[in-house]
């Protein structure tokens, strides 16, 4: 009897020890609120999708998911914060094409490794960029644009939200593939660029679909093509650049949830499944689609890691080709 009790006590102690050593094990996680770091200021599309998902995750996992904006240095400050936090499942964050594919290629130094320092949980959103023009230009298709630009080398301007943004790199790639020469005009964010595009001071722009959509629908801007291989569900009549003669042109803006490397496999599995379930909820899906955002075919953490790695390689090449690297 005594021995039984002692053994039982020892077992209980072991169990407690095990639970303490693995606080994220099984039922134990999440035992406290989870912080969701957004490396951009509030109100942008990345922030909005995080704030859309947070209440859903809170409902299914039973703990608050608190969105915290840590903007700065093109998203690097927030991404670095996630990379350097404890891998206990209580700090996750949004990682995006900028923080995980473009910045490492563009900037002189980035304080983290986009693959090794992260556990990629779920790709949340992919948004195509769309080639839009001022309506006063007598150009109605990509082929006409190429001909028009070739006849006027150096006369057309293309705007972008910043140096090294997807819009800038798409423009550079477009120039290379078509052998045209246009001047890049960088702005501080997409809105002022769109303003100058509407006014006709710049001629074209590779804007993300979400921000271009209202002006395209109102007929204030003319859309020529999307930058993805697949047509967009929001503008299904619009051809892709690939269909329009730029074979293989494929660029999307994307972001997804990530945690620091070293998170336990259980937590990763659980989080990833719940994030995807939240994404698939009709209400969330509908809201995202209204903004021109679409879910992705990338469905597992492993696929996501492979996707990030492929993107990183692609942009390292593109940045080098474009000459956008500052130093």
């Amino acid at each position: 009897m005594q021995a039984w009790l002692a053994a039982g006590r020892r077992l209980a102690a072991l169990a407690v020890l095990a639970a303490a050593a693995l606080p994220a094990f099984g039922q134990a996680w999440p035992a406290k609120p989870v912080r969701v770091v957004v490396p951009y200021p509030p109100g942008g599309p990345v922030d909005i999708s995080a704030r859309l998902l947070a209440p859903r995750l809170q409902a299914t996992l039973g703990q608050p998911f608190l969105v915290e904006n840590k903007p700065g240095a093109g998203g690097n400050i927030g991404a670095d914060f996630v990379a350097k936090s404890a891998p206990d499942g209580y700090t996750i964050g949004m990682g995006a094409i900028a923080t995980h594919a473009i910045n490492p290629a563009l900037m002189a130094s980035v304080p983290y490794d986009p693959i090794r320092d992260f556990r990629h949980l779920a790709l949340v959103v992919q948004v195509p960029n769309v080639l839009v023009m001022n309506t006063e230009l007598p150009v109605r298709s990509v082929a006409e644009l190429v001909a028009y630009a070739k006849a006027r080398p150096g006369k057309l301007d293309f705007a972008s939200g910043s140096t090294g943004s997807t819009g800038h790199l798409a423009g550079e790639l477009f120039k290379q593939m078509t052998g045209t020469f246009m001047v890049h005009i960088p702005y501080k964010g997409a809105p002022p660029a769109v303003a100058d595009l509407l006014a006709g001071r710049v001629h074209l722009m590779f804007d993300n679909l979400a921000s271009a959509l209202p002006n395209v629908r109102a007929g204030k801007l003319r859309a020529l093509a999307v930058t993805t291989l697949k047509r967009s569900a929001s503008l299904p009549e619009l051809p892709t650049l690939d269909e329009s003669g730029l074979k293989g042109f494929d660029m999307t803006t994307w972001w997804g949830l990530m945690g620091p490397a070293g998170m336990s496999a259980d937590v990763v599995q659980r989080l990833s499944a719940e994030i995807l379930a939240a994404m698939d909820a009709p209400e969330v899906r509908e809201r995202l689609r209204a903004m021109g955002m679409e879910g992705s075919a990338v469905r597992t953490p492993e696929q996501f890691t492979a996707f990030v790695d492929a993107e990183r390689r692609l942009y390292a090449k593109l940045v080098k080709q474009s000459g956008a690297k500052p130093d």
Partner: protein
Amino acid sequence: MEIISNLALGFGVALSPFNLLMCLIGVILGTLIGVLPGVGPVATIAMLLPITFNLNPIAALIMLAGIYYGAQYGGSTTAILVNLPGESSSVVTCLDGYQMARRGRAGPALATAALGSFFAGCVATLIVAMFAPPLAEVALKFGPSEYFSLMVLGLVAAVVLAHGSLIKAICMVLLGLMLGLVGTDVNSGVLRFAFGISELADGIGFVTVAMGMFGLAEIIANLEHKGAREVFTGKVKHLWPTRDDFKRIWAPILRGTFLGSALGILPGGGALLASFGAYTLEKKVSKNSAEFGKGAIEGVAAPEAANNAGAQTSFIPLLTLGIPSNAVMALMIGAMMIQGIAPGPQVMTERPQLFWGMIASMWIGNLMLVVLNLPLIGMWIKLLTVPYRILYPSILVFMCIGVFSLSNNPFDCLLMAAFGLLGYVCVKLECEPAPMILGFILGPLMEENLRRAMLLSRGDPLVFFQKPISASFLIVSIILLVIIALPNIRKRREEVFVEET
């Protein structure tokens, strides 16, 4: 009359009990966060965004807009009482508002701010209702060269703004310009003056600088007088402006409203210029210009009217073009998009209830604010009777919370402390911080637009004179410069003459 039926539709929507409640909640929240130094509308609206998912879009936007212009009201309260500008627009209110408070006239200053804002809000709301689409076209006429020339005019005005030595004012403007250079270069993406600190990659935050240079420096300077800090309240005579005050403020309020409404339409930093511009204008045209900087009531009335008018008209580029003119407007876009409304030209035609409901709610919100704020003046004044040894630590705590909440980064608090020290040095050297702040705001915008204009013109500097709007700004700047220079030249010639005889 289409406008009347539109406004009737709008008021029908805005006056529904639920929307009225949301508007009230918005303006009360806005006033509160405006009064708390540093806790701005951006952080508040971001936190409230998830709550708005479950509201209908109109109620949600009415509440968020209420927070925005409520904060404009509240922000002037701390600017006047404790020299703490929480928003870029209330920096100018500090200049004369705080001086009025020091002379025991905090009550009239607060009342003037509230009444001026209310009047400006009413007029600007009407302007938005009547002319939004054509004014959006005007906003589009402003390109890089126009913005650059406008900023030049603003900088020249900054020198006029100072009331001490001209040399010191110019030095402070230059210091501001240099601080504005910190961060990532827009054209090349190169980091400038960041010294390897990634927090500096996006430049130094405006609120951080303003809170350090004004609020923190003032606290340090006050602590110098051991125990003998002025007690403003002992001298408080009345809370309400006198008849003479009313006579002095009506014209500045009118001018401020006009200037603010015009500048608020420009999405590329026009609203920032509104209060600075109104103050400068008043200083030039007022009979009492000698009093400016020492507690002139015109110096509170004009910029307060201007910033509120600008806050209202900055909804024009948002609602008609989908282009946000500041961080709060960018958040409003987020709030609209999350509701499935794409801000842009169709909002007005496809969602007339939303468009006109919001406009009507702005007027109602302004009315609520003035009703709410006038009785509160007595309470705010009582706040000053709190002993300073208790008041200043609590102000410091709120400042740190506010600055931290900007990007959830403790680095900003340290930076604010550094600017507090710099501000104290400036107090000792009798250098005005206001021209520096204006240089700091305008510098980066000027550089960006100058380089963009030159890129677009392929390097031809004549472009600034070929565009009529841009050319007229530059000509006005030159005239202003001559006016500033003339008395000095005359004085120097007189001095030379004296020496010779």
